[in-house]
């Protein structure tokens, strides 16, 4: 047991926790002001709901050692998950430190999906859908990729900090939800002006800050790979933000604040699976390309196809996550991390095939599973708010609360 590693992982868990309220402000700034509390609440209630789900059975379903679909209930209620290390996951920190670090990932992943159906989902349906989603979609995929006995882990697919489990998974679910729930009333393939751009910047800043815990913390030790992850994370985010600003400058004449932070977040998404396996120059390439891909997805593909992924959960997390997973298969190298693998550019094309299998399995399962859960919840409670409620806004209709006063 190492006190340094334990301290580092606990601080990293706290950093990742902060990403969920950070995401709430990132998304909250983008919506109309009648809906900001609706968005903040949808993100923040997951800190509470999944925070409890995780210790009761989510951690067990994800990480209890088992071959097959998921981990089962052997560790339900944290039975056997104590303060001694569990060497197969992390040999130098208490098992519960690993568990609580993973809890924060389970919380933020469903919160990412919120961006797809913002401004039009009933709160009751949201809570039910996301608890089912956390249990039947997130937990199995986490088991496949990270759990002992998980088939993608055994296959050798690389996912350092959650590119498939978190971002591709959430991004795919986001696209399915956006298609099923339909467009916001009055949406005309043009984004509504965000009601508070400074909130978007505040949220993005908290995300960037928290992402050091997400990626460097995924080394599960205060060691070389953690430092590598920290450095490439910062570099990819920086490059992606810069490239997005330049793209806007070229295409629209001026670079924007909203665009720059969107680029930085896309860079953070893309470097996530690669953070522990690539060195710093590939991180620059990963960051540059992700902004180009996401910029096209958000500004060209989405309006042309006409779906209303309101806050671009798929456009940024889905697309950025898929690029990151594939880029890991291109640029991973044993020089950067001896415990990793070489990618295509280091003479091992098989790694790219493994990455493609992981991406395909995640997209297929998350897409189909989200479809089924959405339809089930829609049948039981009805997912979408009424037309009148949508006009008045989620803050007043779902929470009887207003964010801003007009008169004191």
């Amino acid at each position, binding site marked *: 047991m190492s006190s340094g590693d334990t301290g580092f992982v606990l601080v990293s868990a706290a950093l990742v926790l902060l990403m969920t309220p950070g995401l709430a402000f990132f998304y909250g700034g983008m919506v109309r002001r*009648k809906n900001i509390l609706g968005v903040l609440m949808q993100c923040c209630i997951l800190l509470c709901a999944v925070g409890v789900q995780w210790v009761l059975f989510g951690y067990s379903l994800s990480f209890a050692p088992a071959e097959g679909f998921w981990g089962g209930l052997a560790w339900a209620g944290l039975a056997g998950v104590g303060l001694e290390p569990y060497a197969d996951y992390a040999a130098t920190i208490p098992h519960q430190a690993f568990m609580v670090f993973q809890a924060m990932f389970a919380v933020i992943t469903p919160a990412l999906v919120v961006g797809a159906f913002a401004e039009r989902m009933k709160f009751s349906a949201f809570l039910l859908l996301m608890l089912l989603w956390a249990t039947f979609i997130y937990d199995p995929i986490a088991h496949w990729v990270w759990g002992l006995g998980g088939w993608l882990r055994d296959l050798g697919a690389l996912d350092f900090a959650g590119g498939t489990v978190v971002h591709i998974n959430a991004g795919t679910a986001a696209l399915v939800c956006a298609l099923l729930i339909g467009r916001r*009333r*009055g949406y005309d393939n043009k984004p509504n002006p965000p009601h508070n751009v400074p909130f978007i910047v505040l949220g993005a800043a908290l995300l960037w800050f928290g992402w050091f815990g997400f990626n460097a913390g995924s080394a599960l030790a205060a060691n070389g790979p953690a430092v590598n992850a920290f450095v490439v994370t910062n570099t990819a985010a920086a490059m992606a933000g810069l490239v997005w600003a330049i793209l806007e400058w070229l295409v629209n004449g001026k670079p924007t604040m909203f665009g720059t932070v969107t680029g930085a977040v896309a860079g953070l998404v893309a470097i996530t699976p690669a953070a522990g396996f690539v060195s710093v120059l590939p991180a620059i390439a990963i960051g540059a390309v992700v902004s180009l891909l996401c910029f096209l997805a958000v500004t060209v593909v989405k309006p042309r196809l006409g779906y209303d992924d309101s806050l671009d959960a798929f456009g940024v997390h889905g697309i950025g996550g898929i690029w990151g997973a594939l880029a890991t298969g291109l640029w991973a190298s044993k020089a950067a991390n001896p415990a990793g693998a070489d990618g295509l550019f280091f003479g091992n094309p098989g790694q790219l095939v493994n990455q493609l299998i992981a991406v395909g399995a995640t997209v297929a399962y998350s897409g189909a599973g989200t479809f089924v859960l959405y339809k089930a919840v829609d049948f039981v409670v009805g997912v979408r708010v009424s037309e*009148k409620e949508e*006009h*008045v806004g989620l803050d*007043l*209709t779902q929470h*009887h*609360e*207003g964010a801003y006063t*007009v*008169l004191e």
Partner: protein
Amino acid sequence: MKLVIAIIQPHRLEAVKAELYKREVNLLTVSEVLGHGRQKGIAEVYRGVKETGNLLKKIRLEIAVNDNFVEPTVEAICKGARTGETGDGKIFILPLERCVRIRTGEEGREAIG
């Protein structure tokens, strides 16, 4: 000259603007206001304490027009703002004594257009 004041539902603003532009009424002032007519406000609850009778958000339009534009303006607002529910709003038409364009000092009919 008349001053047309209309109180409408916020979500109908875009539709009203589109109808006004169709009839070449291109000049308007918009403000956000609070109020209610026959509708009741939505109850709000803060930390478990309920407040009732709160006011609803509305949009107030002010449009100064020459007499021959009064009917098209009223028609446009009704068409754009009507949903058939209580709370659709009202239109008030007031006589307008004087109108001055600040930039040029023009008055009356010229100044409005």
